[in-house]
């Protein structure tokens, strides 16, 4: 859904119309030159010509934002599919989630379309101010890109300031993540979804009082601070045996093509948002179930004589969800790790991933930081081989099937190579 040089929406100031037109032209040129989707460069052009374009372009759209550390792109794609059952949708489905990508997505869509936009978690406050969203989905918060978002609880605190007293925005938030609950907790209107968060190490210290949060003891999954009254809120939406159940007890069964617990949780968030924007529950569920891949994630590709299934994991919390969807041993796993700016320059998070779980199968250590990974695997007691080149690593696994798990730029790089 990259922008094209569509006619500009009526009712915009001349400057914004000009900006959108130039942005569309720049995007199109970038695409024709083979430089990717073009939305970021086109969006930058829009914001150079009209710095307030995001605010003006968002006016007149029913905007839903999706933010958090993991699952943004998948949830936004699920939401886009659900909303499309009710009307036209503008979305940054490819994941360009900072203001240029958002401006490009809004400029490209038809006037009055609903907007399903994923937003970088550190940009969320500014984007909420600019777009006055109807709904915001807050998925989870955990360590990611340690070299730049160095204090994850600072992000939670900035969310809290953003949503405190913000009328006319409904927040759909993950009740199982204490940092999200703290971040959303001051909003006047919140729907709490039991979306789960297997990773708990970033929320051990209470974001409110600094006390210890206990994740044990409750009959059902829950958590509570031992020092103050921050605890898991009562749920408005819960997951139950593969179905999504709302506060009224309405049950929506989902047969998602996307695998894993995390994607069911993403679908619960998306469905709750879609319904708030007026989409029909059953039609939304059917549309979401049909989604088979998300910008290449979960897709299978043939590499020589090997069928490779592509998975993305870019931090420890994401890895915990990926273990859940790996094919059983002895199917080899090819792990590709880079540490470019978009990945975070510090890959020491590899030591927070319980790679010990991969024992009993061959793991290929690949990518620009494959040596860090190889050392991690050695200390985890996992049989591994080192092959920095991802395509060569897939072949060297010597199997008919492999699962490939790559972090952000490693994933993009592999897809680009396989497409060429």
């Amino acid at each position, binding site marked *: 859904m990259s922008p094209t040089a569509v006619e500009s929406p009526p009712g915009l100031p001349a400057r914004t119309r000009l900006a959108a037109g130039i942005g569309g032209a720049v995007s199109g040129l970038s695409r024709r030159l083979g430089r990717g989707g073009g939305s970021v460069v086109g969006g930058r052009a829009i914001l150079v010509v009209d710095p307030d374009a995001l605010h003006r372009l968002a006016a007149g759209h029913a905007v839903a934002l999706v933010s958090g550390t993991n699952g943004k792109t998948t949830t936004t794609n699920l939401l886009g599919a659900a909303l499309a059952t009710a009307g036209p949708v503008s979305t940054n489905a490819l994941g360009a989630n900072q203001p240029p990508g958002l401006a490009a997505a809004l400029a490209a869509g038809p006037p009055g379309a609903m907007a399903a936009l994923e937003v970088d978690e550190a940009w969320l406050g500014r984007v909420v101010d600019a777009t006055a969203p109807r709904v915001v989905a807050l998925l989870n918060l955990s360590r990611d890109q340690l070299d*730049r978002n160095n204090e994850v609880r600072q992000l939670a605190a900035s969310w809290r300031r953003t949503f405190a007293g913000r009328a006319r925005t409904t927040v759909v938030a993950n009740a199982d993540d204490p940092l999200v609950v703290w971040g959303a907790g001051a909003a006047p209107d919140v729907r709490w979804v039991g979306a789960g968060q297997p990773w708990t190490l970033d929320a051990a210290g209470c974001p409110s009082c*600094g006390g210890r949060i206990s994740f044990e003891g409750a009959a059902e999954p829950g958590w509570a601070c031992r020092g103050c009254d921050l605890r898991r809120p009562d749920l408005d939406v819960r997951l139950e045996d593969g179905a999504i159940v709302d506060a009224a007890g309405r049950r929506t069964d989902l047969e998602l093509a996307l695998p894993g617990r995390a994607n069911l949780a993403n679908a619960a968030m998306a469905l709750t948002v879609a319904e708030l924007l007026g989409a029909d529950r059953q039609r939304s569920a059917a549309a979401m179930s049909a989604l088979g891949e998300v910008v290449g994630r979960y897709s299978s590709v043939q590499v020589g004589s090997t069928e490779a299934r592509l998975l993305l994991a870019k931090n420890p919390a994401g890895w915990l969800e990926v273990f859940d969807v790996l094919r059983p041993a002895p199917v080899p796993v090819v792990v590709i790790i880079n540490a470019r700016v978009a990945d975070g320059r*510090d890959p*020491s998070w590899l030591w*927070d991933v319980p790679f010990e779980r991969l024992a009993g199968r061959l793991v290929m250590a690949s990518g620009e930081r494959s040596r*860090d990974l*190889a050392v991690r695997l050695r200390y985890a007691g996992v049989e591994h081989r080192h092959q920095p080149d991802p395509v060569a690593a897939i072949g060297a696994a010597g199997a008919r099937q492999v699962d490939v798990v790559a972090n952000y730029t490693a994933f993009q790089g592999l897809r680009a190579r396989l497409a060429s």
Partner: protein
Amino acid sequence: MTGRDSTVTVVLLFPDLLGTYGDSGNAVILAERLRWRGFGAEVVTVRSGDPVPAGCQLYVVGGGEDLPQALAARQLGPPTTGPLRRAVDGGAAVLAVCAGLQILGTSFVGPDGVQADGLGLVDCFTRRGTGRRAVGEMVVEPDTELGLPALSGYENHAGVTSLGAGAVPAGRVRYGVGNGDGSGTDGLWSGRVFGTYLHGPVLARNPALADRLLGWAVGTLDPLDDQEQEALRTERLAAAAAEARRGGRRRLVGGRR
């Protein structure tokens, strides 16, 4: 010295508070390197609120954010009678990284920006820096007494640490910031306590340092096949050298792209 028939305990202190940068890996590495040599070894994880054992051979404390750092310091105190002090007096070896190093000193900056009391185990104090946050690859030429090759790591901190008159730096910074007080040094070492700003985790990239700590705790050790670890160390040292040739760091404090 500990015999091979007994189990060596590596205490990982507060990974729920001070585990932001993969530093818990240091405990895994120490225990594995003992096992590879036929020792019994276990990692005992002490979470916030749990009692801290004072009678173990190795302690590892890592880096983290301001508020958890203050909580950790409170639980390791008081300075003269706390469990970590008793462990060190009993001959234990301690690896303290970043926030862990800061709380071992006499004072550090609390979450409210005010100086907080540290454990006073080592002679240093930490202030908040006024310049850029120190983030990036780092290379340290260790103190010659340590007999170690160049150390590689990744730093990420806003604190500036100054050493007291009696303290010996862990090494001189060849690339990066380290203590950041203008002395050109990183960390400190004192007896069997080694403190540094190197993450990575530091023992993943520097197997010789891991063995120095283990040697302090259990005596002479057989060499291991560290080909993979040395390949990583060589690669990171080369990456830092290449970065230095290109003109060094340009990213800013808490920098956005």
